């Protein structure tokens, strides 16, 4: 027993050795990469650079694309190796499906990642928890490729924690054959989120199956702040979503691809990069950005504070925003690129023209991605709500609001879902089972009582017989 307990303690100790998280008592100030000494790399040594990125989020050499990680290794080993004592680098690449997965892995596992690519709100959270290295972005030779509009973002005001990798915007996908073009405009002739609430398309509308994005569609529509800390605003949005629920075909995540391609549904909110993929297979699909405001996300490269090779991580970041790697990635991923070298690259523009999508004014995928940019969104919001910070980007929730939103989401899921037959049938089954069990217990008891009675009777008969027999000879 003692051995088992001690085994437990050892295991718990191993599991609680968190790599990147720090104790609450420590001061949460970031360490700068430039301040720490470069490890002593030796010639002939192979350094493993651990890169942790979203799935399907890098050009990996499939379908004639450039293998960016291999290209980095080659570049580093031939051009930069001498700065690191002649050491060679090897990229170890792994992927995650959500920001939250990445966060918990970073916080709880002992793997020391050198590069992660979180979204905006997650960068803010990691930064606030002291889980990132800061670094001097001006020392990156390719940093000039990053447009000014992506610098000094709210999550990284001094450009010292992150370098943007991709970005994307949310909008509405609709089927041109089914949806009347006039319905995407409101009374003021502005493109509106209201299409998702249009009763004409009952059972043909899809909605996000996660609270953050679903609430956002309602909040953008009615000019509520998606980063509000006021529970009342969320309650208002809930009313809108409840109103919408009877019109919906369902709340979906990645099923949206299939449903839109097979024309199972006609209207859905989603991200523009994914829309381009869908439009490859279904030519009736079109896309618009509602004028009331949309969400955009930025995924950016960061160096976690657990990194063992932050200097080489910087080399990696610099390579990724260089023209070769950035163009290859942008073509592979299909999301918009926050990189002027990509936007102006002829190779890239040509590749974007190969997309099947064609808007009504003849604009192609390139125009759809880049004509409506985050700064346009922010400017539009400024003119609508002067003086307020644009809520186009999601901010990290504080725990109270997170709980509140979760509760509202459950409320939404429960609402209106009364199908009486479910209650009746299940209660009938339970009653039947209980009745059967009771009956069989009763039968069993009765039988065993009967048997016991019979045994008793037999015994009595035997005894009387024996008595009779015993008495006989004396007669």
């Amino acid at each position, binding site marked *: 027993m003692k051995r088992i307990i001690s085994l437990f303690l050892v295991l718990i100790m191993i599991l609680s050795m968190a790599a990147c998280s720090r104790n609450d008592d420590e001061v949460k100030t970031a360490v700068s990469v430039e301040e720490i000494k470069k490890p002593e790399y030796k010639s002939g040594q192979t350094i493993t650079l651990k890169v942790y990125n979203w799935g399907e989020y890098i050009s990996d050499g499939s379908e004639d694309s450039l293998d960016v990680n291999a290209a980095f290794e080659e570049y580093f080993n031939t051009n930069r190796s001498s700065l690191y004592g002649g050491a060679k680098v090897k990229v170890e690449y792994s992927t995650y499906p959500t920001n939250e997965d990445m966060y918990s892995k970073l916080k709880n596992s002992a793997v020391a990642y050198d590069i992660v690519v979180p979204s905006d709100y997650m960068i803010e959270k990691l930064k606030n928890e002291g889980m990132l290295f800061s670094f001097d972005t001006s020392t990156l030779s390719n940093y000039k490729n990053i447009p000014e509009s992506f610098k000094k973002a709210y999550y990284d005001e001094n450009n010292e924690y992150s370098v943007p990798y991709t970005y994307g915007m949310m909008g509405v996908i609709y089927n041109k054959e089914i949806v009347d073009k006039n319905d995407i405009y409101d009374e003021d002739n502005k493109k509106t989120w209201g299409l998702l609430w249009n009763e004409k398309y009952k*059972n043909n509308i899809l909605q996000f*199956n996660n609270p953050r994005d679903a609430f956002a569609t309602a909040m953008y529509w009615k000019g509520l702040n998606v980063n509000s800390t006021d529970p009342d605003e969320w309650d208002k949005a809930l009313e809108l979503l409840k109103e919408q629920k009877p019109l*919906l075909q369902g709340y979906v995540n990645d099923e949206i691809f299939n449903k839109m391609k097979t024309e199972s549904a006609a209207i859905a909110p989603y991200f523009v990069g994914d829309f381009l993929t869908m439009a490859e297979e279904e030519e009736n699909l079109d896309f618009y950005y509602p004028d009331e405001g949309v969400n955009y996300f930025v995924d950016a490269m960061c160096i976690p504070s657990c990194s063992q090779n932050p200097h080489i991580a910087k080399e990696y970041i610099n390579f990724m925003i260089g023209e070769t790697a950035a163009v290859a990635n942008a073509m592979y991923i299909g999301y918009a690129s926050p990189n002027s070298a990509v936007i102006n690259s002829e190779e890239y523009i040509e590749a974007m023209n190969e997309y099947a999508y064609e808007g009504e004014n003849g604009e192609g995928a390139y125009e759809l991605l880049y004509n409506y940019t985050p700064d346009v969104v922010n400017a539009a919001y400024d003119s609508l709500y002067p003086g307020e910070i644009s809520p186009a980007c999601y901010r990290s929730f504080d*725990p109270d609001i997170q709980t509140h939103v*979760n*509760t509202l989401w459950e409320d939404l899921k429960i609402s209106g879902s009364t199908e009486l037959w479910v209650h009746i049938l299940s209660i009938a089954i339970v009653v039947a089972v209980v009745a059967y069990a009771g009956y069989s217990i009763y039968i069993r008891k009765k039988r065993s009582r009967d048997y016991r009675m019979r045994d008793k009777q037999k015994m009595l008969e035997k005894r009387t017989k024996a008595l009779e027999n015993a008495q006989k000879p004396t007669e």
Partner: protein
Amino acid sequence: MNKKRSFMNSIAAAPHIFWAVLFIILPLLIVLYYAFTDSDGHFSFSNIASLPSYASIFWLSLELSIIATAICLLLGYPLAYIIAKSKPKTQKILSMLLMLPMWTNLLIRTYSIMAILDNGGIINTLLGTSMQIVGTKGAVIFGMVYDFLPYMVLPIYTCISKIDKNMWEAASDLGCNTFSTLTKVIIPLSRSGIISGVTMVLVPSISTFYISQKLGGGTFELIGDTIERQFVTGALNVGAAISLVMMILILISLTVMNKFGDSDEGGIIV
């Protein structure tokens, strides 16, 4: 000699114990830890206290899984009976056919059902209609039945085929026809199979989240979805508390069900 054997035994058992500790007991302790702490790691009952608000979701999951289990039993018992009664060669083929869908991953099977039942899916295309099937509770029950039916049939089939042939003969000798043999002899003797079948269908259907997400169209949540969402949105503590209560409830219901199983047959899991 004896001492030596017990030493050898403990060596042989060591990997299993290590496995059990690492992957069963330790995770349970972690769930326990999260269920009774708040997000800052301080001891707290607030997660447990917040559970009553999930009661209606829990009831819905329970109701749907009870219906699915009952349908599985109604479909599965005759099937198991037919398989057990057929010739050995046919038995092999039939049980292989039963197992065949299980070679495909559950997620893929569920996703394909969604594609079949969808508004623009195969059924609606063939009929030329656009019935709304995905998104109803019926579709979720259908998915549960489809996915978990083999778990009902297999234990019952094993149980029936283990019944001594003499029992059947004795029953008919004593005047039972086929039907009363079934009701008076075979069903009571295969009770342990029924109970393990019911358990193996009921427990995964209560806690399923994938089936309800895909076939329920996300318009309602089952308790599995709720737990999943809590974990995904980072509310580990509430998620852990729900899981803990679920585990306890399942444990209780298994114990109750075992009471009805034949004690000497040993029956099932708990």
